[in-house]
């Protein structure tokens, strides 16, 4: 809480040395302090990330409901109920995290999340899709936990925890890819937030090329 309400030095957004290899090149040019015009872009980016977290929460809900419906109104075994409740808790927590970012976007407190923004958004899009596809529910629980970690890190506005969380989420997505060999590329049943994801991510692209 303390460090979140503290407007950070934009320069700290660089921190490229500690970045995992896959994000390091992107986050390197973030040392430049944001100009007034960029502040708006940042608020928009924060809002966009919150949109994606909301979409992940939607994915979790869809997944949980699909599992429940498989019982056709019959009794759901206790063990499955417990899993569903755990996922529901995670979904609700994710929504709170998203609402935090909406509040931050309104207040513009979160300083630039750095150039890893685009990557971050892409990861959450992947996660939302994966949650619906996974065959092993245990993978899903870990994935959701990683997602919550990322959401919590994003709320701090600190680059280091964000990058660590990004790494953990990416690792989990890779692990799932091993368990669930490539399904049909794009489930069009995604929530309404998802179609806008691609152009939005593209919009952020020029920044990371700088």
């Amino acid at each position, binding site marked *: 809480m303390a460090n979140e309400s503290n407007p950070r030095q934009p320069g700290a957004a660089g921190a490229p040395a500690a970045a995992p290899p896959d994000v390091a090149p992107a986050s390197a040019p973030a040392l430049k302090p944001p100009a007034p015009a960029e*502040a708006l872009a940042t608020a928009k980016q924060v809002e966009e990330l919150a949109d994606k977290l909301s979409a992940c929460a939607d994915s979790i809900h869809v997944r949980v409901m699909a599992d429940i419906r498989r019982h056709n109104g019959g009794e759901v075994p206790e063990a499955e109920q417990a899993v569903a409740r755990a996922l529901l808790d995670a979904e*609700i927590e994710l929504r*709170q995290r998203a609402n935090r970012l909406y509040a931050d976007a309104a207040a513009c407190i979160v300083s630039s999340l750095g150039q890893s923004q685009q990557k971050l958004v892409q990861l959450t899009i992947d996660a939302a899709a994966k949650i619906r596809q996974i065959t092993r529910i245990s993978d899903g629980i870990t994935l959701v936990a990683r997602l919550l970690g990322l959401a919590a890190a994003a709320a701090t506005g600190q680059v280091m925890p964000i990058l660590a969380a990004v790494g953990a989420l990416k690792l989990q997505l890779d692990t799932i890819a091993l368990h669930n060999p490539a399904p049909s590329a794009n489930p069009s049943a995604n929530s309404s937030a998802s179609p806008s994801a691609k152009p939005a991510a593209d919009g952020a692209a020029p920044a990371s090329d700088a």
Partner: protein
Amino acid sequence: MNLRRFLSLPFFLALAASLLLASCTTPTSGPVSLYEVRQFADASARIGGYGELSRRYRDTYQREQPYLSPAADRIARENDARRRAVYDDFVGIQKSLVLYMQTLSLLAGEARYDLSTQLDDLGTGLKANAESGLQQRHIAAYTGLTRLLTRVIASGYQNRSVATMVRDGDADVQALLEAMITLTRLYAKTNENEKKTVLGIFDVEIPFSAKNQDRMLVTLAKVHYLNKATEYKLVDKRYDLALQGLAKVAQGHQRMRENLNNLTSDEMRKLLATYCRDLVALRDALSD
């Protein structure tokens, strides 16, 4: 007696005619009546939705609290504090916009009122710090508009015409309306997560109670779900209506800015009358 009447009638007719002529030939200076501008400004000042939805946003936690797990509740309480910290500023934007529109309305009419007491309301300004909830340029717009209003109102309107005010105010008015639109959009998204939190629990828990002995509890849960679903459905519409209204005000003001020299042209009057009708219709829809 009769004679005096006879004489005075044409005199008044002539006076009225010359006044009418004057108002046609000098459309943008002096205390002319610009009926449509006035109507538009009045409708813009009374635009509904934003204030109510700002309050709803501020009070999010009160509504969602009973549905939260301890972990989610911890985050929610922090969010609550954040939302409350910025509420006054969110309302402040609206206040300055309303005062601007009221002043514009007075300038566009002949009557004179004293608005100076309302200036006190603006005096404090927005908290220009990290928690103010507004971007620097929004704060600049607020300050700019406040300064303009202070000048206009303090001068007793004499030296200000509608055209001057619209020209000087447009950039700030647009910036503030944009801030209100952005905020309303964020309100709507926050509400969406609240809705899905509240309804989502019942989505999951009601099927789990399929074989539950306690039928009354399940029935109550279903009734509660229906009530809540209806409530959110009604609220969802209000965000749309509020956003439409804000966009209309922004468009209308921009059109005036583009047509400063023919505010009294037929085309412009028709256009403003249309915006006005739309704003009134939106307001009616919001008060249903």
